[in-house]
């Protein structure tokens, strides 16, 4: 079906070669539609970050297909792939990945500016996104002047700013207390309800509870899916 923002078809990914090779994903099939938030859970090393990297075009599958808006990512030129990463997908990294020489607001505005938005408009959008996450006061701080949890929220603002259709978040609540984590999930949920597709890696069930569907990964395979009937329909469709 073409209405999915993100689609994986029997995706495989092996890291490394020879005896050291790790088969991180072993045939993952999934689909995320606009307005749908899918959570990915699973033990450490089960392939969650690998899956998210493939979804964001930061890495390419070596078997099967990863499609964004119906287009296979490995068919794109470097330039078009870079445009997907900037324009379509917003990514919250497990380790935040903020640029240390830029302030919070500059970090958040950067993807918009890279994409041709004027500096002032980009800055305005950045302030709004920071405000939504309760960081309005810290817009002028540099990453090393903020706590881990604050940096994490700046990274989330950066992923949500602008008009991303696909939001990918890798443990976005890792460094946060449960109340602040909740704020982040609410903001993410609002964005998805406004029409984005979301993929959220988390090891906290209470945060996965915000998703429409929860996928359990183990050793690179989906072992379990929890969600409304639509998910079951998906599986049936794929195996018939």
């Amino acid at each position, binding site marked *: 079906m073409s209405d999915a923002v993100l689609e994986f078809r029997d995706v495989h990914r092996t890291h490394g070669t020879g005896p050291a090779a790790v088969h991180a994903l072993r045939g993952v099939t999934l689909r995320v539609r606009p307005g749908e938030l899918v959570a990915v859970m699973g033990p450490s090393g089960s392939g969650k970050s690998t899956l998210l990297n493939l979804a964001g075009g930061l890495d390419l599958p070596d078997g099967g297909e990863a499609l964004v808006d119906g287009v296979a990512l490995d068919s794109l030129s470097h330039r078009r792939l870079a445009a997907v990463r900037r324009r379509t997908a917003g990514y919250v990294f497990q380790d935040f990945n903020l640029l240390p020489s830029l302030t919070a607001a500059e970090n958040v505005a950067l993807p918009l500016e890279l994409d041709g938005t004027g500096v002032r408009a980009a800055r305005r959008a950045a302030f709004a996104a920071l405000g939504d996450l309760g960081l309005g006061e810290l817009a002028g701080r540099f990453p090393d002047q903020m706590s881990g949890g604050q940096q994490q929220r700046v990274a989330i603002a950066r992923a949500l700013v602008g008009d991303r259709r696909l939001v990918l978040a890798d443990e976005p609540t890792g460094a946060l207390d449960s109340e602040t984590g909740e704020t982040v999930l609410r903001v993410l949920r609002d964005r998805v309800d406004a029409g984005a597709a979301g993929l959220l890696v988390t090891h906290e069930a209470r945060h996965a*509870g915000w998703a429409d569907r929860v996928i359990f990964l183990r050793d690179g395979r989906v072992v379990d899916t929890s969600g409304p009937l639509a998910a079951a329909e998906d599986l049936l469709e794929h195996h018939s």
Partner: protein
Amino acid sequence: MSIRHGLLALLERGPMHGYQLRAAFETSVGGTWSLNIGQVYTTLSRLERDELVAALPENEGQRPYAITDGGRAELNRWFATPLERSDRPRDELAIKLALAMTTPGVDVAAVVQGQRTAGMRALQEYTRLKTRTGPDDLSWALVLESMIFQCEAEIRWLDHCETALLRRRPAPAPASATAPAPDREEAHR
């Protein structure tokens, strides 16, 4: 928790008759625990027998009840005493899993996975309900939070069980070591 103490707490707000008590009970726990009117009246008559509540004169066919000083003391004692783990009903799920482990022919991993999916679904439902609570629904929101935390704990425990089960499984024979686990493939078809 006992219905007794629930009713005493509600009567502390002022006298109420059975139907009012039932409605107030459901509002304060947000419909997570519904009482039938028979339970309410049985409990009221036991409370009256123990002199923890007193029946007031009938009014328009309904008999209101009021909390007594003894009832108030009992209520304070209840609030002041932490619940012991052993006061709560036995954990049926843990018992079920223990039985599954020791009963031949039972796929314990499937029991664990099925239960985790159900727990996750409940958690999703409670979260959805929580997003709909307003600022003046704090008591209901906190009851929901409690159920969310319980689901979370149960899901973590089930994750733990699954890992322990996998570890316990004997290592596959060398010849089949690289073949994909067929049982796992079947699990989500």
